[in-house]
């Protein structure tokens, strides 16, 4: 069962001079178990779209379905939808508030009315899924942790709700490279060991290239392109035209090809680029 968005339109500031059509005829589908990257310039509609997915905002037109249930049709079902579609906001560490990591992660399950036993079990599982040693971390104050660790605690808080879909909005913003790798490495592992679908919203083309199965590119409220990272990043000029960057490796490959280098177009890693360049250089030197 997927998340399905059909013919979505979303207007904000209706009736004012700032009326904006944030989403304009969006059709997308996210299947169970997928790892999808959502990219687009600021104001392209990414954040609006993910808020429609879990019913934080109602669509102006069109419908969103989560596993067959239409979002917003029956208000009583919103709670279930929000449990199924877990949303980790930007800078989620600002939402940590409890004295200990364990209490913070337990907040959601307790509010779901779960038993003490089930709550404890979920907290332990969620913290381990994001790479913590449960015993070592549970009594720590969330405020004493590093930036990357705080974020992992915040993600664990959403995982403890056992979502089927996990949406991460810019999970690495403001982190240093080591913190970025820490978060993304854990998300990747999480996706591998659980059946959760992950939707990663990111400005980092390098991160998207490394992780996801499919990329959805939004531009001015519309789905501009969809495809595998290799498909998408081989359209370097087009991505730059719509205000997005490309991984540096992709721009090296593009420039070399433009200058007559006979190498593959769809290269995303340093390793692959090295192999291809060596082949071409050696061929030329023969």
């Amino acid at each position, binding site marked *: 069962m997927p998340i399905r968005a059909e013919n979505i339109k979303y207007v904000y500031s209706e009736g004012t001079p*700032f009326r904006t059509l944030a989403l304009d005829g969006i059709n997308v589908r996210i299947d169970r178990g997928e790892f999808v990257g959502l990219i687009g*310039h*600021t*104001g392209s509609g990414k954040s609006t779209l993910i808020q429609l997915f879990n019913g934080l905002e109602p669509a102006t037109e069109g419908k969103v379905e989560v596993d067959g249930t239409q979002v917003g049709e029956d208000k009583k079902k919103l709670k279930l939808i929000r449990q199924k579609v877990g949303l980790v906001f*930007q800078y989620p560490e600002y939402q940590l508030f409890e004295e200990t990591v364990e209490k913070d992660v337990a907040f959601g399950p307790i509010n779901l009315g779960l038993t003490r036993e089930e709550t404890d079990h979920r907290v332990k599982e969620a913290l381990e899924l994001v790479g913590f040693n449960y015993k070592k971390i549970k009594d720590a104050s969330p405020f004493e942790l*590093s*930036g*990357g660790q705080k974020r992992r605690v915040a993600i664990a808080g959403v995982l403890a709700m056992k979502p089927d879909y996990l949406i991460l909005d810019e999970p690495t*913003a*403001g*982190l*240093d*490279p*080591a*913190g970025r790798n820490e978060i993304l490495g854990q998300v990747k592992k999480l996706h591998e060991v659980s059946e959760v679908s992950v939707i990663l919203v990111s*400005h980092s*083309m*390098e991160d998207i290239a490394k992780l996801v199965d499919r990329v959805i590119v939004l531009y001015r409220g519309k789905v501009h392109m969809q495809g595998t990272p290799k498909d998408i990043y081989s359209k370097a000029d087009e991505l730059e035209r719509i*205000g*997005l*960057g490309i*991984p*540096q*490796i992709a*721009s*090296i490959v593009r*420039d*070399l090809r433009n*200058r*007559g*280098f006979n190498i593959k177009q769809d290269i995303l890693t*340093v*390793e692959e*680029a*090295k192999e291809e*360049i*060596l082949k071409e*250089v050696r061929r030329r030197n023969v």
Partner: protein
Amino acid sequence: MKEYIIKIDKVKYKYEKNTDYAVNGVSLNIKEGEFTAIIGRNGSGKSTLAKLINSILLPTEGKIYVKGMDTSDDTKLWDIRQTAGMVFQNPDNQLVATIVEEDIAFGPENLGVEPEEIRRRVDEALNTVGMYEFRKRPPHLLSGGQKQRIAIAGVLALNSECIILDEPTAMLDPSGRKEVMETLKKLNAEGKTILLITHFMDEAVQADRVIVMDKGYIKLDGTPKEVFRNIDEIKKYGLDVPQVTELTQELIKEGLDLPPDIIEVKELVDLLCQ
């Protein structure tokens, strides 16, 4: 010889008594007109250093001089902050007014600048950052990159000679980051001293000088080429190097004859296509 606009002399700083030094014996001089990038993992001391320069924090030991003014001299506080203006990470936390031009006028108004002079400075600052046509807009309806350019214009309206930016692009998309970097390069070309703290190596590459901090110490200091060629060391400090530098060094290991300090795509492409 250009003057040093910032002189940092054996500075140590700790936030609380029983903690480690956040800045642990740093000496550093910044020349007028220099574009310096400071990189380092979270907690390496780079933001603390910026706050020390701006006199938001005072050194536990050592001295900092901004244009000859001691940052621990109370009477010079406003002159120091006017000389070295600061721009922070989150654009939404530093804009105060409901209209763009009023926001930029806020600083000079508080300094008691004459109204005509304020008008002139605001217009000039807006033009410099390319935001003049947005002067009547409410800031909250601007994009992140535009908001940061407004924050930079606010510093320019104070006639600051030096602009210190603490991760100004962390919350921006690629085109917003580009806008901010282009604005900074333009200001630098016009003579402003720029001190940019960043987690993005592609931004650091564009500076004249890169300083790498770790655990409160300065570990590397040099041109981008001198610094980024030390891939293993940079990675040890929890940082990255540009992919092009990494690729070049991999190719060198395979026997290709290339310089180890390539930091820009164009350099590598030109050499390979010779």
